[in-house]
């Protein structure tokens, strides 16, 4: 079972190199991450983007990119379409977003899934490594579905459960978040929680368990419980493997709290054909490296047919 990003890093070295298409590595942090990942033996990059910009940043970070396949393209959507196309045709195992707006990448994946008639809903899981927790923790959907309806939440959850299985969590614990309080009108997210819990109970969502709690406080304090002592006394061992957020704003905002805490984050979209790393454009090279390594390991496990 994979418990940490250092487990991921170790496995990426063992399972690499994987062919990785990088979408517009036209920024020093992205190019540096590609350089280091290649030097470690995790990846064999295919660079797609603006020739001059890629050459300039490669030179700045001391990376000879002449030995790698380069596809010159300026249009952002085409850059993305080319990379995702390579993933779906089997030419590469992994794709990583570079310094490019994420919406281009999601659009490419949605089109590719439609063309492949996979029926797969495109979603993103942002994964945290929390020092006190003995497993990785995911937030979903942090990238695509703005206000998912119940049917879409089922798909989001199935994708997240699949990712958990790839990471070796046989029966992941899932918290379906809702802003419900004891007063005020009922929230649709709470009704979704109840329905999802019923579905999970009847086995319709695969091997997973939906926790009997819809808030972080409820998970750690129990229903009706209260925090008595300092927050530092809290036992985080009950942290679920996945938090299903009610909407995009929630998942994305929570996921990026790594910048306020002692937490590492990486984001990934598991498609029907492989892994797409979704670093934020604000991420620094070490965080991008983590995400590339995650992509390599997930791609390897998809290829192995781990379910």
């Amino acid at each position, binding site marked *: 079972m994979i418990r940490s990003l250092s487990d991921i890093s170790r496995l990426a070295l063992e399972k690499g190199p994987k062919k990785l298409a990088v979408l517009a590595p036209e*920024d020093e*942090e992205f190019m540096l991450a590609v350089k280091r990942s290649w030097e470690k033996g995790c990846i064999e990059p295919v660079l797609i983007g603006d020739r001059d910009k890629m050459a300039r940043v490669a030179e700045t970070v001391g990376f000879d990119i002449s030995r790698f396949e380069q596809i010159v393209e300026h249009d952002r959507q085409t850059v993305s379409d080319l990379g995702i196309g390579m993933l779906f045709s089997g030419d590469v195992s992994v794709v990583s977003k570079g310094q490019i707006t994420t919406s281009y990448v999601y659009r490419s994946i949605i089109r590719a899934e439609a063309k492949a008639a996979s029926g797969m809903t495109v979603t993103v899981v942002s994964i*945290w490594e*929390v020092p006190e927790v003995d497993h990785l923790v995911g937030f979903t959907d*942090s990238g695509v579905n*703005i206000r998912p309806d119940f049917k879409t939440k089922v798909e989001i959850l199935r994708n997240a459960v699949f990712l958990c299985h790839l990471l070796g969590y046989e029966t992941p614990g899932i918290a379906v*978040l*809702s*802003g419900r*309080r*004891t*007063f*005020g*009108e009922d*929230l649709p*997210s709470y009704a979704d929680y109840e329905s999802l819990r019923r579905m999970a109970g009847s086995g319709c969502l695969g091997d997973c368990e939906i926790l009997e709690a819809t*808030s*972080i*406080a409820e998970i*750690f*304090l129990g229903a*009706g*419980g*209260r*925090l*008595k*002592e*300092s*927050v*530092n006394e*809290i036992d*985080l061992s009950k942290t679920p493997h996945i*938090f299903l*957020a*009610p*909407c*995009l*704003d*929630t*998942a*994305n*905002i*929570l*996921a*990026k*709290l790594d*910048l*306020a*805490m002692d*937490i590492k984050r990486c984001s990934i979209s598991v498609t029907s054909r492989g892994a797409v790393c979704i670093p*934020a*454009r*604000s*991420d*620094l090279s070490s965080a991008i490296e983590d995400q590339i390594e995650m992509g390599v390991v997930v791609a390897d496990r998809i290829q192995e047919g781990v379910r």
Partner: protein
Amino acid sequence: MIGTFQKMIASARGGVRARLAVPLPIKQDLDLLCRVTEEGFILPVLIGDGGAMESLVKKSPLSSLEHEIVNVGEDPGEALSTAITLVREGRADILMQGGIGQKPFMEEVLDAKNGLLKSKTASYASIVQFQRREKLVLVTDTFINNFPGIAEKQIILENALGLAGILGMEEPKVAVISAIEQVNPSIPSTLDAAALAKMAERGQFGKAVVDGPLDMDCALSRVAAARKNVRSVVTGNADIYLVPEIETGLPLVQALCFFGGMKTAGMMLGAKVPVIPDVPFISDEERAAELALAVLMTRKGGNHE
């Protein structure tokens, strides 16, 4: 500027005591009331069954401290309505939930006719003591409004700015947060954020600097924002985080508390007096800070009449 909960408590010491209405206090409330009464900034007014409260107080150090008991019998509804009447009539300055359930307490306080609202919209601000820094930040609305529209968000922001003033933030920097940092008509929170930022630019929020939409990385880190070409005095240094809706606000503050180990307190704003609901993830230590803050609000005339 008040940068920690300890300083909040210290600031409340030594001035005029505020009268705190507590309907049906429970033992845990008494421990807190002892502390803030000893600190010298609260005079507890306990409302409920006189005999039962006398007996409870006798077992507590509060028995030797100044307090008042208002005997209205054991009915929770009567205790709460009496507490609300006391604050409406100016005979109490602050209202705390006490032993009343959260649902009846909030419904009574928010009742348009008999409650304590100043206008149609009340809000709740969480006050978070950020790790590694001596800085308090406000996150709002984290408890009351489910899916506020732009009109409600304007009031939620105004309420928070009032509280920021009490904390000594002279020109508060507000991050109106969303999933992305660009205005995208498909994501309603980005439109609200942009409108609020524009309103601020026109001076509608006084001296506050309001920027949005900002995604969380841009709001939290100037370096991250610069990598996205977002340049603003708010990035990396926000005093107030305005969230899109309750579905975001509630888990956000809980994540900061449980995963970030950050202390949180909170206050209902937009009522005629400071109102303190009982929120389960706020520890007793921080509840004392809430009362200190309520006292400062009472003294400075902020967020109440």
